[in-house]
C-alpha cells in the first residue's frame, strides 16, 4: 500500500478512503466554474467521479445527524457557486446532497478541511484539535482559488499542498521525523538517496525511542500505529520517493517478521542494526560499486555531460579523477532548483574543468560531449528512467547525436511500476518556486510574494512546476547498478531477483 508513491497518498484503511473521496467530491464542482468552457475528457471524468462520490456519500448519510448550522453554511457557499456557473448546477446539487454526509465525515476524521494536512491524521488515532477546527469557509475558498491554478492535465497530481510547518502534525510523530519532513519540503534534504537515508536514520531514532504499549506486540503495533503516522507526516511534507517507498516496504516486512517472543530491546536493536545494514549495503556500498563501474567507462579526453545533480554521478566523476583520468565535465542545469550549480561548484572546487549551462542551451552543450551520465529517481519496470525533469530532454539530444546515455542507479530505486509518460505519475511542486528564479530559497517564505500575487490575479494563467519526467528506454544505453551494467530492458528482471532475495 505504501510502496512507491509520488502520488497523492492512499490512506491505508477504508475509513479515510471514504473521507478522501468526499474531500474530492467537495472540490471538483468547485474547480468547475472557471473551467466550464473547455472541458477536457479528464475533467469530465473527474466530475463524473465526484458526482458518484457525492451520491455514495449521500447514501451513506442515512442518519442526518449533522449539525444543522454547518450544512446551511455549505449550501450558501454552493449557491453562490451555482449562480456563477449554471452549467454545473446539477453537480453542485448532488454535492449539496452529499454535504451532510461530508460534514459528518469531516467531523469524524477531524481534519479534512484543515489547511494543509487534511486527511493525514486518519487512522482514527487522532482527535480533533481546536487548531484544526479553523474557519472552514475560508479554507475552502482558498482551495477553490488554488484549484483554478491547477493545470487540468495534471489535476490528479495536486494532492495536499506541501506542509511547511509542524503545526497540526500527529502527536506521535517523532521530533527527528518532524525536522526531516520540513527539511524535505524545503529541499534541504533533496535527492532520492539522501531522502531515503535520512528517512531510515530518522526511523532508527523512532524505533529506539519506541516502547510497545502493554497488551500488544511490537510486530503488530509498531508498523501500523507508530510508523505509519511518521510516514504519513513525511508524505505530507513531500511525496515519498520510490527509494523511500522501497525502504519502507522492506522495513515493514522486517518488523512483521519479528518473532513476538523476542524481547523488545533485542528486537529494537535488531531493527536498528538491520537499518544500518540496509543503508550500508543498498546505498553506501552500492554507490561505491557503481562509482567503480561507471568510472571505468570514462576515458581520457572524454567530455562528460550530466544533468542537474546526482550524488552517484558526482562520486563516479570523482572516482574517475582519482584514477588519473583527464576529462571535462559539462553540467546542464535548470530552474527552479539549480541543483547542477551545487554539483558544478563542488566539482570545480575539486579541480575539474567544468562547463555550466542551462537547459535552454542543452542543444549546444551536447555538441561537445562524448558521454552522458545521469542519475535516477527511479528506474521503471519498462526500462524507462524516471528522473529530474529535464533529464529526458538531455537524453533525447544526446541520443540524437549518438552519445551513450549512462544511468547510474542503485537497485533500491528499481520499481515494479511502469510509466509511459510523465503525466500519469509525477510530483507537482508549488508553482511559486518557478518565480523565485533561484535567488530565494524555495519554501523560504520570501519568494516573490508581490510577483506571485500578480500572477495569482490573472485568470486562466497557470504555472506548472513538475519535478520529474520519464525518459524513454531507447535513449538509455546502459544502466549501471551495483550488480553490474544492464540494458534498461533488464531492470524488471533485476528488480524481481533482488526483491525476492532481500
Amino acid at each position: 500500500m505504501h510502496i512507491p508513491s509520488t502520488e497523492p497518498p492512499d490512506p491505508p484503511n477504508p475509513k479515510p478512503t471514504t473521507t478522501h473521496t468526499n474531500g474530492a467530491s467537495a472540490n471538483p464542482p468547485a474547480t468547475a466554474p472557471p473551467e466550464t468552457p473547455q472541458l477536457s475528457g479528464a475533467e469530465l471524468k473527474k466530475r463524473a467521479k465526484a458526482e458518484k462520490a457525492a451520491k455514495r456519500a449521500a447514501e451513506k448519510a442515512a442518519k442526518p445527524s449533522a449539525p444543522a448550522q454547518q450544512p446551511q453554511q455549505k449550501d450558501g457557499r454552493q449557491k453562490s457557486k451555482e449562480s456563477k456557473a449554471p452549467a454545473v448546477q446539477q453537480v453542485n446539487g448532488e454535492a449539496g446532497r452529499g454535504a451532510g454526509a461530508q460534514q459528518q465525515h469531516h467531523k469524524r476524521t477531524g481534519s479534512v478541511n484543515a489547511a494543509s494536512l487534511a486527511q493525514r491524521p486518519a487512522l482514527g488515532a487522532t482527535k480533533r484539535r481546536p487548531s484544526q477546527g479553523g474557519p472552514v469557509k475560508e479554507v475552502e475558498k482558498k482551495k477553490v482559488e488554488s484549484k483554478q491554478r491547477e493545470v487540468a492535465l495534471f489535476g490528479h497530481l495536486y494532492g495536499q499542498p506541501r506542509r511547511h510547518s509542524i503545526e497540526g502534525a500527529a502527536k506521535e510523530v517523532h521530533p527527528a521525523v518532524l525536522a526531516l519532513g520540513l527539511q524535505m519540503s524545503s529541499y534541504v534534504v533533496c535527492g532520492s538517496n539522501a531522502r531515503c537515508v535520512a528517512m531510515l536514520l530518522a526511523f532508527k531514532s523512532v524505533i529506539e525511542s519506541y516502547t510497545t504499549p502493554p497488551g500488544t506486540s511490537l510486530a503488530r503495533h509498531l508498523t501500523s500505529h507508530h510508523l505509519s503516522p511518521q510516514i504519513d507526516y513525511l508524505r505530507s511534507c513531500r511525496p515519498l520517493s520510490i527509494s523511500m517507498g522501497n525502504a519502507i516496504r522492506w522495513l515493514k516486512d522486517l518488523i512483521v517478521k519479528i518473532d513476538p517472543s523476542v524481547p523488545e530491546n533485542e528486537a529494537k536493536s535488531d531493527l536498528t542494526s538491520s537499518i544500518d545494514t540496509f543503508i550500508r549495503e543498498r546505498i553506501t556500498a552500492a554507490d561505491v560499486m557503481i562509482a567503480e563501474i561507471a568510472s571505468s567507462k570514462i576515458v581520457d579526453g572524454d567530455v562528460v555531460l550530466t544533468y542537474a545533480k546526482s550524488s552517484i554521478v558526482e562520486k563516479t566523476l570523482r572516482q574517475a579523477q582519482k584514477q588519473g583520468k583527464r576529462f571535462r565535465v559539462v553540467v546542464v542545469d535548470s530552474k527552479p532548483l539549480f541543483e547542477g550549480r551545487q554539483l558544478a561548484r563542488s566539482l570545480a572546487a575539486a579541480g575539474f574543468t567544468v562547463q555550466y549551462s542551462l537547459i535552454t542551451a542543452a542543444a549546444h552543450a551536447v555538441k561537445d560531449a562524448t558521454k552522458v551520465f545521469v542519475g535516477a529517481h527511479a528506474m521503471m519496470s519498462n526500462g524507462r528512467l524516471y528522473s529530474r525533469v529535464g533529464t529526458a530532454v538531455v537524453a533525447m539530444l544526446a541520443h540524437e547525436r549518438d552519445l551513450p546515455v549512462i544511468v547510474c542507479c542503485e537497485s533500491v530505486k528499481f520499481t515494479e511500476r511502469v510509466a509511459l509518460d510523465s503525466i500519469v505519475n509525477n510530483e507537482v511542486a508549488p508553482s511559486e518556486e518557478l518565480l523565485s528564479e533561484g535567488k530565494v530559497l524555495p519554501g523560504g517564505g520570501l519568494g516573490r510574494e508581490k510577483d506571485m500575487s500578480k500572477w495569482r490575479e490573472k485568470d486562466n494563467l497557470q504555472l506548472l512546476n513538475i519535478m520529474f519526467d520519464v525518459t524513454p528506454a531507447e535513449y538509455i544505453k546502459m544502466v549501471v547498478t551495483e550488480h553490474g551494467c544492464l540494458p534498461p530492458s533488464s531492470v524488471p528482471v533485476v528488480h524481481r531477483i533482488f526483491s525476492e532475495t532481500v
Partner: protein
Amino acid sequence: MAANVTPGLTPFLKSLKATPVESSIEHFISLLKRRQIRNSRPCAIATTQLLLRVVAEFKGRDVNKLLQRIRHVGQRLTAAQPREMAVGNIVRRVLGLIREVAEDDDADTSMSDAGFNSPSPANDGPHHDSLKRPALSSSISTFSPLRHGATLPAEPTGLHHSESSAGTESTEPHHRPNLFTSHTSYAPMHGSLLNIFQHGEFPGSSASTPPGYHSPTGKATPLMSQSFANLADSGPKKEKDLKAEVVEGIRELLDELDQVDDQIAAYALDHIHSNEIILTHTASTTVQKFLLTAARKRKFTVVHAEAYPNDSDDTHATVLDGRKTAGEADADADERFKPLTAAGITVILIPDSAVFAIMSRVNKVILATHTVLANGGLVAAAGARTIAKAAKMHQTPVVVVSGVYKLSPVYPFDVEELIEYGDAGKVADYDDGDFVDKVDVVNPLYDYVPADLVDLYITNLGGHAPSYLYRIVADHYRVEDINL
C-alpha cells in the same frame, strides 16, 4: 518609464529626422554594436527607416550611384552586427527595389526608343510609367514565384554593365559570369527586350568576358553615355520619379513590416482547431498575435515555455500583460496587445525542462524565430532546438511563424557562426564570484533548428514547406545582392 532615456528603437527613430544621415548611420551602427537595438523586428524597422532617409537624401541622378551608396551603408550595418540578419535582409530588399525600379525605367526607355514590340502604342515615356507603376509596389512584397521562371531573377545586361563600370569597387565577387549565359532562357518579353538592348549596344561583348573584368574606362563607356543619354532624354522629371518610386517602395516595405504580424495572424484559423494544446516558446509578438486571432474564434490551451534565462522576463511580461518588458524600446503603443489569458485562453507557463514531459499532450508547436535561412532551417531563441526535437520525437507538428523580412538568403554552412552568446551573468550570478571564477558558464542566445525538424512555415505570404523557402528567397532578393 526609462524608455526615453535608454537608447533604443524609439529614440533612434525620433532622432532620425533631425540628425544628418551620416551621423544617423553611425548612431545606428553603434546601437547595433551595443545591442541596444536587437531582435529582428526593431532592426528591420530601424534599417528601413534609415535607408529611407539615405535614399531621400541621396543627391545624384545615377541609379548605380544610389545602389552603390545603399550597398555601402548596408555593408557597414551588417558588419556592425552580422547576426542580426534582418538588417542585411532589408538592405537587400531595398537594393532589389532600386534595381526593379531602374529596370522598369530602362525597359520603358528602351521600349520607347526601339519603338516596336510594345504591347500598346499608347505607352510613351512618363505616361507609360504611371500606368505601370501600381503593379510594382505589390510585386515587391508579394512576388509571384511564376514571375521569374529561372532560379536567377531577370537582370538586364545594360544595367549590370553600367553598374560595374560606374562602381568604385569593381572587384565585388557577386558578378557571376553565368548570369550572362542564362539570360536567353528568360521570359519572351524580357528576352526580346534584352536582346534588342544588347545587340544594339555592344554586339557580342558578353559572350565570353565576365562583366567584372571590364575596365571602368573601356568598353562600357558608350553604355554609360547611353544611360546618361537615357536619363537626359526623359528629362529631370524622370529622374525625380525614380527616387520617388524608390522612396515609395521603401514605404511599402515599412508598411509590410508594420502589417506583417497581422497578415500572418490572418492565417491562424487555418491552423488552430478547437481544444488544441499549443506549445510556444519565448515572447514573440508574431506568435502572440497569431494565437490571439485564433482565440477570437476558438478555445484552446497554450503551453508557454519561458526560455529562461534570456527571454524569461519578456515571456512573463507577455503572459501577464501582453507586452514585452519595457527595458527595450518596445514600449511603444503598437507593441502592446491583450494577453492571451484575457481572451479566455488558458495559458500554462512551464520551465524549459518540462518540455519533453508535456510534449506528449501537445498538438502543435508554434515557434517564433529570429532568422529563417534559405535552406529552411532557422535561428531562434535558445531552447527552440530542444522543443523542435522533442516535437519530432512525439510526431507533433512544428509550425514556424515568421515575416518574410526575417527570411535571409544566407545559407548556414557553419551553424556555429550564426549563434550569438549572451551574458553569462544571467546563468550564474557574478555575485557568486567563486563559482564564476572556476566554472565555464555559457549562455548561447540562439539555437539553430534544422529544416527537417520544421513541418511548416507561415509567413505573410501563406504557409510553405521548409523545402520551398529557397523559392521565396529567390523571389525577394536579387542574386547580385546576396553578398553585400
